[in-house]
């Protein structure tokens, strides 16, 4: 019987295997950022250990850096965390894309940009959205700080073989519907823990039709469905994206590499432990109404009532979410007004995301009373957007144009949503307090967020015929 890409990558990375024990798995790439690494480096220092493979380790700072005047960090504790990362990288010889680096940006955006992310690699980072890199056919997953220390010291991890899950997405997306809507619809349909204990492979006609950046949006949110990792078998789209990037072989060597990568795709006769399906042609633009990413509905829907929950616990959870979100059951999603728009995060702050939003915004203005900002995913995205004139579109429309960083995705820096106010956000988590204490987050696609900025409420972009507005 054939093998899935998950099994192929796993088997190629086993360093040691023994009955009744997890496998010792080799790690090809370890990405590091300022928030989940200081205690790990400190652990190494205390034990007198080195970083085993600094050449397979790459660091950036993204979570708590300001996106305006990035050099003047007023929060002293945040500043210390950043200084500590600089010191640690110097001491242990790890390459760092610091504040002054043209490569700086959100860890999951710069890995692919720099060609560090490649098919068949095992990739880890002390961050749950590491699954983003799975879009390239890599086995990429988030780890905790103890594991960060373990990988720094040994370039490996003890891991139990995960269960495999196929998520088959066939059908064609309608116009105005994006990759973000696919993943939000999937999580709304199957819940926030459908993938627990599994690595998910996204397959099907709809997935094949997506660009690399769209695939990254989908894989990024695998963790919101509880999955350990999410990936997509590499194909020509993947190879075209990677060609010519730094850190990948060039010329003939690249062709040889591609031939090798082609072997990774899941075999036709491979079997998965379980399968879920979604029909892309039925997906509509999605908006979340609650406090987890599974609490979402199509834009033409309404806020649900607690009674719609199947169990008592679920009903209580809905009630708690509605209470926090300040929403009444039965309210039309299109009638919900917003005060903030955040276009950013590792889910949706790549160039194509900004292009989508900007295309809609040409000649339009942000509604009165709405504060809107764009935070590019990396400094490179920022430069490209400026060269293409996207920044001008955003600024003319009344958006704030910022430097790269995680920003309002988690509000560790000064970018926060005030208590009780509502934000249309292209990020990935609408948890209580995520964007600020008492902040109310609604997740959606970049074009939906741009339209919300202009109208001051959620609108159905399919009715705006965004695709023909040049």
């Amino acid at each position, binding site marked *: 019987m054939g093998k899935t890409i998950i099994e192929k990558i796993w088997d190629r990375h086993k*360093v*040691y295997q023994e009955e*009744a*024990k*997890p496998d*010792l798995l*080799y790690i090809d790439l370890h990405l590091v950022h300022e*928030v*989940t690494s*200081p*205690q790990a480096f*400190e652990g190494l220092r205390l*034990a007198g*250990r080195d970083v*085993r493979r600094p050449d397979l380790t790459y660091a950036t700072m993204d*979570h*708590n850096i300001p996106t305006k005047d990035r050099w003047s960090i007023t*929060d002293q*504790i945040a500043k*210390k*965390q950043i200084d*500590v990362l600089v010191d640690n990288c110097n001491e242990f010889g790890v390459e760092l894309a610091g504040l002054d680096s043209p490569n700086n940006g959100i860890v999951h955006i710069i890995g692919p940009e720099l060609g560090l992310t490649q098919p068949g690699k095992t990739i880890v980072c*002390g*961050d*749950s959205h590491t699954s983003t890199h799975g879009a390239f056919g890599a086995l990429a997953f*988030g*780890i*905790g*700080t*103890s*594991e960060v*220390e*373990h990988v720094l*010291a*040994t*370039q*490996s991890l*003890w891991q*139990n073989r995960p269960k495999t899950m196929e998520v088959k997405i066939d059908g064609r997306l309608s116009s105005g519907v994006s990759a973000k809507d696919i993943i939000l619809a999937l999580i709304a349909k199957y819940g*926030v*823990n459908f993938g*627990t*204990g599994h690595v998910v492979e996204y397959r099907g006609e709809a997935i094949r039709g997506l660009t690399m950046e769209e695939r990254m949006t989908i894989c990024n949110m695998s963790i919101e469905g*509880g999955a*350990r990792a999410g990936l997509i078998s590499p194909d020509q789209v993947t190879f075209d994206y990677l060609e010519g990037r730094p850190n990948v072989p060039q010329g003939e060597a690249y062709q040889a590499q591609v031939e090798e990568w082609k072997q990774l795709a899941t075999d036709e006769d491979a079997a998965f432990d379980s399968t879920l399906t979604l029909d892309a042609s039925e997906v509509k633009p999605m908006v979340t109404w609650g406090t*987890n990413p599974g609490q979402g509905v199509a834009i033409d829907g309404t806020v649900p009532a607690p009674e719609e929950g199947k169990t008592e*616990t*679920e009903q*209580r*959870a809905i009630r*708690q979410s509605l209470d926090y979100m300040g929403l009444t059951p039965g309210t039309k999603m299109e009638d919900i007004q917003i005060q903030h728009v955040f276009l950013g995060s590792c889910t949706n702050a790549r160039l194509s995301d900004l292009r989508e939003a900007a295309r809609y915004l040409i000649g339009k203005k942000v509604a009165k009373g709405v504060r809107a900002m764009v935070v590019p995913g990396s400094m490179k995205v920022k430069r490209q957007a400026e060269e293409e004139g996207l920044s001008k579109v955003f600024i003319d429309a009344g958006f704030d144009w910022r430097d790269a960083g995680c920003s309002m995705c*988690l*509000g*560790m820096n000064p970018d926060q949503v005030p208590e009780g106010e509502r934000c249309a956000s292209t990020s990935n*988590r609408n*948890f*209580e*307090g*995520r964007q600020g*204490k008492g902040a109310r987050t609604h997740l959606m696609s970049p074009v939906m967020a741009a339209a919300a900025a202009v109208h001051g409420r959620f609108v159905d972009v399919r009715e705006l015929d965004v695709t023909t507005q040049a």
Partner: protein
Amino acid sequence: MEAFREHRGSVASLPYVNVDTDQIIPKQFLKRVERTGFGQFLFYNWRFLDGDSKNPDFPLNQPHMEGASILISDHNFGCGSSREHAAWALQDYGFKVIIAPSFGDIFYNNSFKNGLLPLRMPEDIVHSWLEKGKESTFQLRVNLEEQTIEDEEGAHHSFDIDPYWKNMLIYGLDEIGITLQYEDYLKEYEAAK
């Protein structure tokens, strides 16, 4: 890591589903570069109202849950962000064992690495304990070697645990130290690449 064989303690009941790590330890406390001192910030936005006064409605603020060392919650506990600060905060607050029908994968792993024991128990048992713990506390005795939880009535409930983690916890082993003993295998693997 401290060894863990057996623990007897009183229970705190948190009957919520999908408790994410953003709630367990909110982001404003992630800037510290130490591993210690996070307990005071545990469930901060739920435990405290504005001005840092205690929220009287939050389960953990009920007088009968004071001093609890076993936390019981509902499905998908610890989902979301990978922040290990969540495990550090629970432990620093005084918890030794977390019981739920299911856990977020990363949190589950993080707990073991810190000697905090996460136990998956059948939903009906968890729900009955959550209910029971609402009004008054009770004791449970967790025996890791035998893989059982004994309740106050003397009934024994068994649990599953990965033998690898069981061994690590019982002997309080340093995982990195152990892995470094596989240096030859790592070298061999790297050479073959």
